[in-house]
């Protein structure tokens, strides 16, 4: 086998389940003996983040914060959690309050599996517990720990809006620091590239069609950076021809409906994912917002029309060499 064919043969996918989705670490250009232990490390990092920030694990930081809601006791959080909370605060401010990590608990009113809408008055009862402005978050300074308090019982934090994307970035940079130059981390469709194919060509990533599960609506050539997508097809039900999806406006508790899906290309998956979620929430104002962030995007509106903004492909980032 020629060296080139061998290099092509070294394109290894390590599949695993995490964060309620199918995930894959893809490492190319390295033999299995080298790639496998590194993939294992990356998977451990994804699981670490899942355990630390999942609402569903009692020992997680988020669960500890939520359990202390209404107790009057602030919870001390480490630097990593504090950085994410600061980021969440910035997302809240930049989205006019629409991106709100206290709004996750509104999903209690909706049963997407059974296809049931909220009972009368249920949302009105839950809404007072929603609002980033209502909690107390303080931190001495960047790089420091912080303290957070949820003043009302029943208030909850939910990192679901960016946890998966953050994990994709962390796993990818971990692999980069181990010397991996070619591959990607794909967590349920949120993708962060480690580097282009071994021959330097970009990967071809597909964006799922929001209405036809087995089809793609677009393909993107990417050599570096990340791609994330939010859509109204991930968790939803339809009733009388109206679709109710899991992306809820925190002011009303009602699902958004302007976009079938929004995809964003950005250097980091954390950025791409946060922007897709904000775009879904901003509804009619989404495109102006994405343009102001100067990222490439592909948005499919409720009628199925595609709105795209120049996604510029470029080669790998580089260090200066004399």
């Amino acid at each position, binding site marked *: 086998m020629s060296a080139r064919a061998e290099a092509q043969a070294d394109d290894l996918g390590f599949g695993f389940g995490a964060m309620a989705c199918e995930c894959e670490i893809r490492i190319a250009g390295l033999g299995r003996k080298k790639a496998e232990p590194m993939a294992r490390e990356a998977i451990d990092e994804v699981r670490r983040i899942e355990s630390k920030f999942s609402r569903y694990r009692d020992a997680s930081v988020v669960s500890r914060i939520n359990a202390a809601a209404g107790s009057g006791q602030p919870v001390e959080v480490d630097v990593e959690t504090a950085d994410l909370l600061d980021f969440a605060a910035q997302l809240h401010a930049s989205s006019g309050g629409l991106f709100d990590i206290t709004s996750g608990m509104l999903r209690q009113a909706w049963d997407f599996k059974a296809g049931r809408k909220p009972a009368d008055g249920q949302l009105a009862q839950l809404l007072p517990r929603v609002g980033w402005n209502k909690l107390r978050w303080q931190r001495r300074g960047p790089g420091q720990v912080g303290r957070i308090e949820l003043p009302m019982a029943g208030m909850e934090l939910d990192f679901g809006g960016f946890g998966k994307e953050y994990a994709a970035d962390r796993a990818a940079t971990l692999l980069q620091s181990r010397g991996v130059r070619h591959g990607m981390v794909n967590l349920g469709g949120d993708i962060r590239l480690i580097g282009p194919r071994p021959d330097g060509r970009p990967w071809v990533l597909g964006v799922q069609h929001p209405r036809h599960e087995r089809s793609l609506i677009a393909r993107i050539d990417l050599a570096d950076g990340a791609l994330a997508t939010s859509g109204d097809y991930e968790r939803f039900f339809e009733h009388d021809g109206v679709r109710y999806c899991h992306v809820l406006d925190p002011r009303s508790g009602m699902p958004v409906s302007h976009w079938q899906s929004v995809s964003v290309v950005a250097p980091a998956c954390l950025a791409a994912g946060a922007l897709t979620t904000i775009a879904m929430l901003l509804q009619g104002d989404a495109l102006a917002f994405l343009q102001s962030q100067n990222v490439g995007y592909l948005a499919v509106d409720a009628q199925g029309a595609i709105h795209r903004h120049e996604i510029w492909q470029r*080669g790998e980032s580089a260090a200066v060499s004399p």
Partner: protein
Amino acid sequence: MHEAFHAGPGKVTRQQGTAMKKSALATLAACLAAMAGCANYEPPKAWEKGNLAKPEMTMGGDALEQRFEQHIYTSKENASGGYGVGGGGCGCN
């Protein structure tokens, strides 16, 4: 061999040599200051440097090609240097 110490016009004095070096260093420093001192200058971020990795953008270029070029010019002209050290000599005529 002409070992006689000839303090004629052919000899640059120590002071002249140092002054020459100082002015070269000053030029170097001025170039760097000019680069760094521009108002609103923002150095490129890591994700903006894709083009810098292109082969034609690197300073070295093709190693063998550069060697041939330097060798030819050093043999046929008087100036040399600026590129590297320890290259060794030849009896190039």
